[in-house]
């Protein structure tokens, strides 16, 4: 019965794992709802901000801010948004794979790359992968606040203004639906505007106190809000990816238990049969 005992312990340990994964699945499901609500509640700000920036793109100020001017790209900065924790399927690795491909393309064109990481997993990745990390923000928790991002984003924007960077991209998982997360690399700076026919005539704002001050404040906030949205969206992706991953882990554990149970029953029955045949054999010999 030694084999049977081993199988029984194995089943018990898989059952424990299954309990953990199913609990994690339920926690992730509850957090996912909250994360999605949070994602939706950031939309109005982003939309209004985009509208204002769209207007601004068509204004004709005497001063053109450097965030809106394209220049020759020699150095690119990436803001990489990842989760703090693992056990969420291929969420982070898919993003990093896409990012590495993008970086390879840049490096082949002779462009230098630098990084700003958000989330523990990205920090761990760049430790292994190498590359210059300029700033980091980790342990943002489930409800990230925009205050947590001011610092890292400012490091990147300062580098852009000093000419240390010519282009800033942001990499994150965009939320399509619960089952699908799309790793995305987007251009952040210089700001790409959309054209709007209605505003084609010559006009400009009144700026208070002056255009330079107001524009840099406005554009900085715009970029921060984009980064914040990326973080919030990535958070919703994390929870839904974890929920799906944990659900499949729970299912797999169930399958494994069924299989082992079958093997266990067979082993038990074989042992009993052997015992009976031994007894019968013994009785016949007497």
């Amino acid at each position, binding site marked *: 019965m030694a084999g049977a005992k081993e199988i029984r312990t194995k089943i018990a340990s898989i059952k424990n794992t299954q309990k953990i994964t199913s609990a994690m699945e339920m926690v992730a499901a509850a957090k996912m709802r909250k994360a999605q609500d*949070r994602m939706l*509640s*950031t939309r*109005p*700000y982003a939309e*209004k*901000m985009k*509208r*204002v920036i769209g*207007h*601004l793109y068509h*204004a004709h100020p005497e001063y053109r801010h450097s965030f809106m001017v394209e220049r020759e790209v020699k150095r690119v900065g990436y803001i990489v948004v990842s989760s703090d924790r693992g056990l969420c399927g291929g969420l982070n690795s898919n993003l990093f794979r896409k990012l590495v491909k993008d970086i390879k393309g840049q490096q082949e064109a002779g462009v230098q790359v630098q990084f*700003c*990481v958000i989330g*523990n997993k990205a*920090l*761990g990745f*760049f*430790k292994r992968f190498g590359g210059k*990390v*300029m*700033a*980091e*923000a*980790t*342990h943002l928790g489930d409800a990230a*606040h*925009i*205050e947590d991002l*001011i*610092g*890292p984003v*400012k*490091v990147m924007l*300062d580098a852009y203004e000093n000419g240390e960077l010519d282009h800033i991209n942001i990499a994150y998982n965009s939320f399509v639906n619960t089952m699908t997360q799309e790793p995305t690399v987007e251009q952040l700076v210089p700001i790409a505007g959309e054209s709007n026919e209605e505003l084609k005539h010559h*006009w*400009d*704002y*009144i*700026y*208070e*106190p002056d255009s330079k*001050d*107001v*524009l840099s*404040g*406005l554009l900085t*906030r715009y970029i*921060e*809000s984009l980064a*914040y949205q990326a973080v919030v969206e990535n958070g919703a992706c994390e929870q839904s990816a974890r929920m799906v991953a944990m659900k499949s882990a729970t299912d797999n554990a169930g399958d494994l238990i069924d299989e082992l149970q079958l093997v266990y029953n067979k082993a038990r029955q074989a042992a009993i049969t052997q015992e009976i045949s031994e007894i019968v054999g013994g009785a016949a010999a007497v």
Partner: protein
Amino acid sequence: MSMKIHVDIVSAEGQIHSGQAEMVYAPAVMGEVGIAPRHTPLVTHLKPGDVRVDPGDGKPIEHYFVSGGILEVQPHVVTVLADTAVRASDLDEAAALDAKRRAEDALAGKQAEFEYAKAQAELAEAVAQLRAIEKLRKIKKG
């Protein structure tokens, strides 16, 4: 019917107000401004204070506190982009320095929280292994 202007007040973490109004008052850095419909385009910083929205038609004036932000005026739309955080250039600077320092610390392998968490996980695993070995020994003896 009197003329109205559309007012949106939003912060990064949610929508605060959206609707029509006859008049909007906001605490701009150069002094309070009152915006009536068909105001000329204007962008300005806001300082912490009260944004008042007068919906007209005898309805009461609505008050919203903002801790700063940006006000944009188009002839028919007023947008208040409120800050959730208290902003000042030296505070921003400190946050930036902090983010840089953390990155350096983490990469230099100092006792950042990241290292700690990893070490803790490894320790837990090692303890579990030892316990398993001990159990095996007992079984063999017994």
